């Protein structure tokens, strides 16, 4: 018995498969964008388990593709680890890839003094092992800012999620700070600014 020659490689079928795969990926990427851009609950972002439900188990790859696609628009998909540290509790959200200028920040309703209060608060909370009593924070801020501004700003940032108050009434870093601010850079920049001032 002679051996039958191997069948010619089917070319049309893989091409169709690949096109279908590409179309499915595009569809899922679009879906991921829609899910992320529309605010659903009180806080922005979508948790890992929800993403899996919307996009399937391969959701992380789809979000990576979306993040690349959003590059020209100056946006990125950012993930904030959840309290449990699992994939399901991780929160995904869209955020600016590059930081805005100070003037742009001001047009968003933040005054320079308010931003300075927030920067000082985040840096101080981080330096104090991530928790500080409100009294201690306020008494430190009072050395640099007027009292009425501190009360107003601290309340505002707690409400917006930049700072958080735990059951022991201690101020902690809020979820929005974790999502929007590169805390390590902030600490480094503050220290660097100080060095520049000293040199001057």
């Amino acid at each position: 018995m002679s051996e039958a020659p191997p069948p010619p490689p089917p070319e049309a079928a893989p091409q169709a498969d690949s096109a279908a795969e590409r179309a499915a990926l595009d569809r899922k990427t679009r879906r991921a964008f829609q899910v992320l851009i529309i605010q659903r609950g009180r806080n922005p972002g979508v948790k890992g388990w929800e993403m899996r439900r919307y996009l399937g188990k391969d959701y992380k790859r789809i979000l990576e593709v979306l993040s690349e696609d959003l590059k020209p628009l100056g946006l990125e998909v950012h993930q904030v680890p959840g309290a449990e540290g699992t994939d399901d509790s991780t929160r995904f959200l869209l955020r600016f890839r590059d930081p805005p200028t100070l003037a742009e920040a001001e047009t968003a309703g933040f005054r320079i003094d308010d931003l300075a209060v927030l920067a000082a608060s985040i840096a101080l909370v981080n330096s104090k092992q991530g928790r500080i009593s409100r009294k201690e924070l306020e008494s430190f801020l009072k050395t640099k800012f007027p009292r009425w501004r501190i009360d107003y700003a601290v309340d505002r940032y707690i409400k917006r999620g930049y700072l958080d108050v735990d059951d022991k009434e201690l101020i902690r870093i809020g979820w929005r700070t974790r999502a929007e601010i590169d805390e390590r850079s902030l600490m480094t920049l503050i220290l660097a600014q100080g060095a520049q001032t000293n040199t001057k």
Partner: protein
Amino acid sequence: MPEREDRDRDKKLEDILRLIELCRTIQSSSVNPFEVDVREKLLVLKKHLPDWDVIDVMLKDSEAMSQLVAIVKLQDQWLKHRASALYIDPLLLELKIQLISKEELAESFAKCWHPVAQIDQLTPKGLEKAFVYWRELVPFGERFKDQFGSYGEQAGLIGLEELESLSIFTREEFEARLNVIHRELLEKSNGKEIDYRSFIQGKDPEETALRGYLVAFVVTEGRATLRTDPMTEQIFIQTIEGKPDDETKSVAIAVR
């Protein structure tokens, strides 16, 4: 002898209460949790344990134990944080923040800020909720009738004449107070601009409002002028010597 035993027992109970208090204080402040010598405290609890025969004291003992567990947890977090890249000596950081200007602080913040992008939109469900809320909202005039009745004045303006008629001010007292605050402004500003809000700041909100009211008269009389920085919206006040400019305008400033 029984008295001495009682005293000993009280002393031991006091030890436990003091330990609970210490642990609570550490947990509700940013003090280093390693200030608590957990091993030593555990030995104290172990030593006292055979003496307890009342359930209430035993509960206190277990509470102290639970507080020590919380301290150990805190010590673990403290070590993890200290080992992380976010750790900076608080004293150094406080000093740095004191040294740099508000603008530099804000600039540092803006450089590492990536705002979240999202669309806030009104959904049909939200619209329905708003409609139901509005429909069921009791008119303002009716809302507090149960608590306060229907009498009372609505918010409005009150003039100096009315304040005089209510015996809140007399003309002489008002003039004297105006002169006092003007003199204070002259001394503090020394011919330069100073922060308006810091100047009117009183011991309590009432005093702040009163000082703001008096300063408004000083400005109206042309003895001082206000300027708002368009970038920071900070308001400055400065005394005027001589005749004021013709280009004056009225502004409303909210006093908190």
